[in-house]
């Protein structure tokens, strides 16, 4: 898959309305605060409809209330134009001129963004890891995307019921729906984690060469085996707190090296390598699904000081049809070079 052009209006500090990208390695060079990460973030948003972490109000240029990002994607079987209108709190997605949802974009376009902040995937809060899993699964399976949205809705409804005076019948209905959807979500997650773990373990070994084995599993805090039992076990707590305290929305991904939790015991470097391995798994699974490589977006490769990881990243970029790589200095190989300064991007 190729990101042919990226357009934007009022996206953070960016000033250039349009960027034509080449096949191979596109390099974006600039000083600190020039706007490199902003270009890659805008590209990721335009290719996927997904805004990693941020709120829309934050990505709109200060003082503006409307903005836009757009991507022209070339696949083997055709070209798609994605337009995303941005207003505080709302994205308006159009796919080839038709109103669409983020899950419609996942059918025609895919991108993976690798940034220095990825280490937070390991050391940050469980919600970051759940988001990694959920957003990847939603892109791999439309069914998961729909089920997950329904599940979240049921949790919201159920929580509202727990906060008020719930009739017993009403609560049992929402609990049944919760268990039904929760079980499906869990089953799909477990299948995906198995695949993610296989790929991540292989790439961990390729990068680190320390002979350690990377394991990934899902932890749900409670020993009970099924969701129905867990719900019963926490009935008192949820009535007291007015929220659903068990279920897929509380589960966490646990990453281990030779059986020891990286979150608890790992070094900073091991965490970075493990998070990179998760991104590689994302890249490979999307590639498998589309039978085409996703657009690879590598932010700030020059901040990567570890020789193994740096070499691995550049290898990844060199062996994919198209990558966009940013840094304060250019990497050894470069097919199309841009320089950024004060939000202005110019082809070299």
């Amino acid at each position, binding site marked *: 898959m190729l990101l042919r052009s990226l357009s934007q209006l009022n996206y953070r500090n960016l000033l250039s309305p349009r960027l034509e990208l080449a096949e191979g390695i596109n390099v974006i060079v600039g000083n600190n605060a020039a706007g490199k990460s902003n270009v890659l973030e805008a590209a990721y948003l335009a290719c996927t409809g997904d805004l990693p972490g941020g709120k829309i109000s934050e990505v709109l240029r200060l003082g503006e209330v409307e903005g836009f990002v757009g991507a022209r994607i070339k696949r083997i079987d055709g070209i798609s134009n994605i337009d995303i209108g941005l207003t505080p709190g709302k994205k308006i997605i159009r796919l080839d001129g038709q109103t669409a949802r983020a899950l419609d974009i996942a059918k025609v376009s895919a991108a993976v963004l690798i940034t220095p902040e990825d280490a937070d995937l390991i050391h940050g809060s469980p919600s970051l890891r759940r988001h990694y899993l959920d957003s990847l699964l939603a892109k791999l399976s439309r*069914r998961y995307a*729909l*089920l997950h*949205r*329904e599940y979240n*809705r*049921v949790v*919201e*409804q*159920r*929580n*509202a*019921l727990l906060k*008020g005076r*719930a*009739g017993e*019948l*009403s609560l049992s*209905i*929402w609990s*049944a*729906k919760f268990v039904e*959807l929760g079980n499906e979500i869990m089953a799909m997650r477990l299948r995906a984690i198995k695949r993610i773990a296989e790929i991540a373990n292989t790439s961990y070994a390729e990068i680190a060469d320390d002979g350690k084995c990377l394991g990934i599993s899902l932890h749900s805090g409670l020993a009970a085996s099924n969701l129905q039992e867990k719900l019963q076990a926490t009935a008192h707590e949820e009535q007291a707190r007015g929220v659903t305290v068990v279920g897929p929305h509380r589960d966490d991904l646990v990453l281990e090296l030779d059986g020891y939790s990286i979150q608890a015991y790992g070094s900073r470097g091991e965490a970075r390598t493990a998070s990179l391995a998760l991104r590689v798994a994302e890249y490979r699974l999307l590639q498998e699904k589309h039978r085409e490589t996703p657009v690879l977006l590598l932010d700030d490769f020059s901040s990567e000081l570890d020789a193994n990881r740096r070499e691995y990243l550049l290898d990844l970029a060199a062996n994919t049809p198209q990558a966009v790589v940013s840094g304060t200095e250019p990497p050894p190989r470069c097919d199309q070079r841009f320089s950024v300064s004060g939000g202005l991007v110019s082809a070299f």
Partner: protein
Amino acid sequence: MKYPSALIQLIRELGKLPGVGPKSAQRLAFHLFNLPEEEVRELAQAILNAKNSLKQCKLCYNITDTELCSICTDHQRNHELICVVEQPADLLAIERSGEYDGLYHVLHGSLSPMNGIGPDQLTIAALFERLQGFDQNTGEVILATATTVEGEATAMYLARLLTDIGITTSRIAYGLPVGGDLEYADEVTLGRAITNRRKL
């Protein structure tokens, strides 16, 4: 320049209508302003007339201009079949499919705790009152609430109560997309959904 207050008020009222954003509200307001007075008067009159003459059917809560709606008073229809829908628009969608000749019951919403909508906010009590004269052996209730989580929960809720009093209950199921609203399902899908309803 600030808009005159009468204009601001008109834009605000129009903007409260479903599907009308601030920009369309403004466009509509200017459009109305440019219309001849007679046409504006007719529109206002039509709105008031509709509001004054329309009410909910005493039996099924469909919108009607008589005590009982034309469906409830139609003796050609099967009075032992009641199809429960969320909105009058859903009733119309099923009527368009032409596959159904029973009666309806309009709930005017679906269970949604986060919006403060419980069983008492819907016409559920009226449904069960209606079912008191129902023949358990031949009668059937079809649950045609939306396939959204709220619609599903409402159907499950009703199904439990209906089974308790021994009434045959089925749920339309066939070919509806996950998370779909009935109103937007096409007629073929809907016709098939009704024909292939499953027993609950």
